[in-house]
């Protein structure tokens, strides 16, 4: 191991005189507490190190020891169900209630191991060595590192095995031997290799109507959620983590509140995965760098998170990564860049901000892993734009790399209309491609209804502007009806309470049924108005209130009640038509 000695130190950056070779981006340990750092610059025998923890107490002469490897994290079956800091060190089990510098890696745990290879087998890189099961977690495949392959010389028998014990020994192509365990380490800044990338025609089912039905994100796709403070980013991401149909959730709290992380830890173990019925925590990995934890580790945390996501993807699983918030990561990048004296670009961010954002989102994909099958990583990143201004650098760069953009609206949030996704500022590129998927889910009218809803909401915005000048009553009846229908779509379909036991998750079947009954309402109402009925008479129909509240009243298991509601609605419209004139506005 190369050694160096501190010559100069200020904040989290130090310069040290090296007495051996160091590599760029090599991980180092500093001082007796062995604080983790990374070599970021080399100049002759001087290295510049960025330290990921509080450097209080360091002085010239303090030792810096190289690890000989880039900043890497251990990946193994012990990840699921646990909470880690930004450098993937466990937060649970610490003796103190406070986070002290110099935290240690997780103690290896034992798992029930069943090998899937035998002595003499050719084990290619990234192959499945066997399956590990442990208490409170789902069975997981154990992988050979993506860069190691050979012929199995020995294989551990089925039984208890510690994460760091030898699971098998391989003879490599160059004749040397290598021992593999259930866990292996991988550098966080290097994307894990795959056999090939595959294009995606399936949406990630999130259980949120406004997302799945209007602005879907592809499995293996990328989505951004920008919004000022108080618009509900975190509540939305948590709702997605609870309700989406991924096999594994990686939840990254990057520079956010400690109480929110505590809330997730409090709530998740008590919730069940809507698909498997197993405790939600079993499919979840939480990575937390709260806003008061060291800022340099915040920069690394996003890479830790996506590397963990790729590790599960490589087992052939569908992974969703929620990053809350990417703005805090970008700010950490800015802060660290400032300490190195780099020239600032737009908004003080370094000029490479755009390419770093692109690199990160590009790691979202559907792939064929090295071991075969299909795996995916879907990335959903929250953005916290200063004063809610979407023209700032992080939002505008991100917009170029994501396919789905869910803009949160402060007006909706203030009226406690959640999720506050603004239907006009949001988009989903290539959403039409999911029509066959929706047809298979039983909603063949999806494309037409989606288009109808979006046009209606667009017209509403225009008419609201006009009504502000001439008054709502002065609008022609057709336009009054548009406002009525749009407000129904908002209230009945787009609004979905994350706190409602019935409505926090909405299956595609229920979404389809709700969409169709609302589509039919619009159709009948337009027909009625065309034949002389006044919109006020439609607003007075008894079916309107049950329609507005069907999300909270009719659960996933009772989709049939929506058909009953539709039958009532048809009857009321029919009787409206038989009433002569039918257009007498009540209350006037």
């Amino acid at each position, binding site marked *: 191991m190369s050694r160096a000695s*501190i*010559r*100069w*130190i*200020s904040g989290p950056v130090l310069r040290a005189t090296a007495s051996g070779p160091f590599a760029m981006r090599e991980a180092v340990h500093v001082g007796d507490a062995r604080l983790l750092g990374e070599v970021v610059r080399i100049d002759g025998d001087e290295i510049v190190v960025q330290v990921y923890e509080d450097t*209080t*107490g360091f*002085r*010239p002469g303090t030792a810096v020891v190289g690890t000989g490897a880039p900043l890497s994290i251990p990946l193994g079956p012990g990840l699921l169900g646990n*909470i880690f800091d930004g450098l993937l060190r466990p937060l*649970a089990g*610490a003796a*103190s*209630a*406070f986070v*002290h510098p110099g935290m240690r890696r997780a103690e290896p745990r034992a798992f029930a191991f069943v090998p899937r290879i035998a002595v003499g087998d050719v084990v290619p890189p990234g192959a499945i060595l066997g399956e590990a099961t442990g208490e409170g977690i789902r069975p997981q495949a154990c992988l050979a590192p993506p860069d190691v392959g050979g012929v199995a010389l020995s294989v551990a028998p089925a039984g208890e095995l510690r994460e760091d014990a030898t699971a098998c020994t391989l003879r490599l192509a160059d004749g040397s031997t290598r021992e593999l365990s259930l866990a292996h380490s991988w550098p966080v800044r290097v994307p894990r290799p795959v056999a090939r990338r595959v294009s995606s025609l399936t949406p990630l089912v999130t259980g949120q109507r406004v997302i799945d039905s209007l602005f879907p994100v592809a499995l293996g796709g990328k989505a951004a959620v920008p919004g*000022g*403070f108080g618009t509900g980013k975190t509540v939305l991401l948590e709702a997605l983590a609870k309700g989406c149909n991924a096999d594994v959730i990686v939840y990254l709290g990057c*520079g956010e*509140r*400690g*109480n929110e*992380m*505590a809330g997730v830890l*409090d709530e998740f173990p008590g919730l069940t995965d809507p698909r498997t019925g197993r405790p939600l925590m079993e499919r979840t990995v939480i990575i937390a760098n*709260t*806003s*008061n*934890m060291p*800022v340099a580790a915040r920069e690394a945390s996003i890479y830790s998170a996506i590397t963990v996501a790729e590790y599960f993807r490589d087992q052939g699983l569908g992974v969703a990564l929620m990053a809350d918030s990417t703005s*805090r990561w970008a*700010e950490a990048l800015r*802060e660290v860049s400032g300490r190195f004296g780099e020239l600032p670009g737009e908004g003080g961010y370094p000029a490479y901000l755009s390419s770093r954002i692109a690199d990160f989102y590009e790691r979202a994909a559907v792939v064929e892993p090295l071991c075969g099958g299909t795996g995916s990583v879907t990335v959903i990143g929250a953005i*916290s734009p*200063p*004063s809610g*201004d979407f023209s700032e650098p992080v939002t505008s760069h991100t917009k170029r790399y994501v396919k789905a953009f869910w803009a949160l609206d402060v*007006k909706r949030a*203030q*009226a*406690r*209309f959640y999720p506050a996704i603004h239907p006009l500022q949001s988009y989903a590129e290539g959403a039409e491609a999911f029509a066959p998927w929706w047809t298979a889910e039983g909603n063949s009218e999806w494309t037409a209804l989606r288009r109808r809803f979006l046009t209606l909401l667009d017209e509403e915005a225009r008419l609201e502007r006009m*009504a502000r*000048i*001439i*008054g*709502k*009553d*002065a609008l022609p009846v057709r336009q009054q009806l548009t406002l009525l229908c749009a407000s129904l779509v908002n*209230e009945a379909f787009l609004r979905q309470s994350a*706190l409602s036991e019935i409505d926090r998750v909405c299956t595609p079947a229920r979404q389809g049924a709700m969409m169709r009954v609302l589509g039919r309402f619009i159709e009948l109402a337009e027909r009625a108005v065309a034949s002389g009925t006044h919109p006020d008479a439609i*607003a*007075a*129909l008894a079916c309107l*209130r049950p329609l*507005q*509240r069907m999300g*909270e009243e009719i659960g996933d298991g009772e989709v049939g009640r929506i058909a009953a509601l539709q039958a009532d609605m048809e009857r009321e419209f029919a009787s409206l038509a038989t009433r002569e004139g039918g257009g007498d506005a009540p*209350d*006037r």
Partner: protein
Amino acid sequence: MRLTVEGAATRLEGPLLFLRRTVDAGLGDAVEVRGADGRTRLGRVAALDADAMTIEVLESTSGLSLAGTVVRFIGEPLSFGLAPSILGRVFNGVGQPIDGGPPVAARERYPIDGLPINPVARASPRDFIETGITTLDLMNSLVRGQKLPLFSGGGLPHDRLAVEIAGHARLRGAAARDEAFAIVFAGIGVPWESAEYFRRSLEQGGALERTALFLNLASDSSTQRLLTPRYALTAAEYLAFVEGRHVLAILTDMTNYAEALREVSSSKGEVPSRKGFPGYMYSDLATLFERAGCLRGMGGTLTQLSILTMPADDIGHPIPDLTGYITEGQIVLSRDLDRRGVYPPVNVLPSLSRLMKDGIGAKYTHADHPALSAQLYAAYARAVQARVLASVVGEEGLGDTDRRYLAFGTAFERTLVSQTGARTLEESMDLGWALLTGLPRTELTRLSDAQIAAHAGGGEAGSGG
């Protein structure tokens, strides 16, 4: 290690003092810098080189000279010696008693920067605090362990509101305050009158002997303002997590803190970010605001109520903007309501309590509390929209529903927001239900039929039909 160094100073620049490195001090170690003028200033080691060191002086450097400057090294980071006897005492901005009493007999010293609380060790805050203020209790409930700032403006009655909350806050149903409560007050760059108002109000309320006051007045050193909340919060953490008390920390005015941060940053020649504030202001504010919460298996809690005045009443200004991203919501005061004589002038629309959902509902307050609050929010937002509409087309140009909303909005501000004495949550809820009876039933989409039947009266049922 207590070492005194004399005659090693080589350069003075803004708050920075450069010394030849003649002692083996560590990064962040505290120092006392005594000038030829006899004044002692606190400082800390900011950078170290093989043969030089940089001291960041945390008070004014005017009057310092190279010759005759004596630097005493404490050998550890800045810390604060604490004991339960800090209650009832008055300190200056750096934790020295200024009430004429004896020094605090410290049981233990704690570094003022604190350490981040491990998220795993946190317990979710769930204890609803009744403040007697309807716009908080009913609309933006405060829970123990929350950090909820007041976003205010110059001339608005934020001091009065903070005093009322501090004076009334108690758990629901409790007739009197919990014996274990304590208040830590930090005046950061506040005018003397403001500090005196708080002191007098706490005295009148009989709470002074349970309060530790930290005062950095407007006339005190601005660099010291960066230390005041750290000393105060170290005391608050000690009272909460060592002594097991329920602490309410009032920090005012955080805008002065941020201004001091900008001043010090620019004198250090750092690259400025938005409006000249340093790029690390978010992280820096977070190291203060995150020092609140509840710990598992620990009786005490630390609740933060900070006050900040929005420069030019602009909620998008970096100070309120970054604060809003860190704190668990905000209570926004409105100049418009204040002008119309509404007290407390809380504008509920931009106000928010993020932890409200965890502390209300059947298990904690009342089963219908969440739906009632959501419905009032939706209705008031619509009323404000109707008001905009009416200001252009006139009230006559509005439809019947919009006119009813207009009336609702006025009544909401006059009877629900405005109040003279403290209200129980039940009184607040009754007011809310009564207001909703003025709206057509089809508009009450956030309430179930059962809730409408039980509370909002059947009188308006099917109205509009």
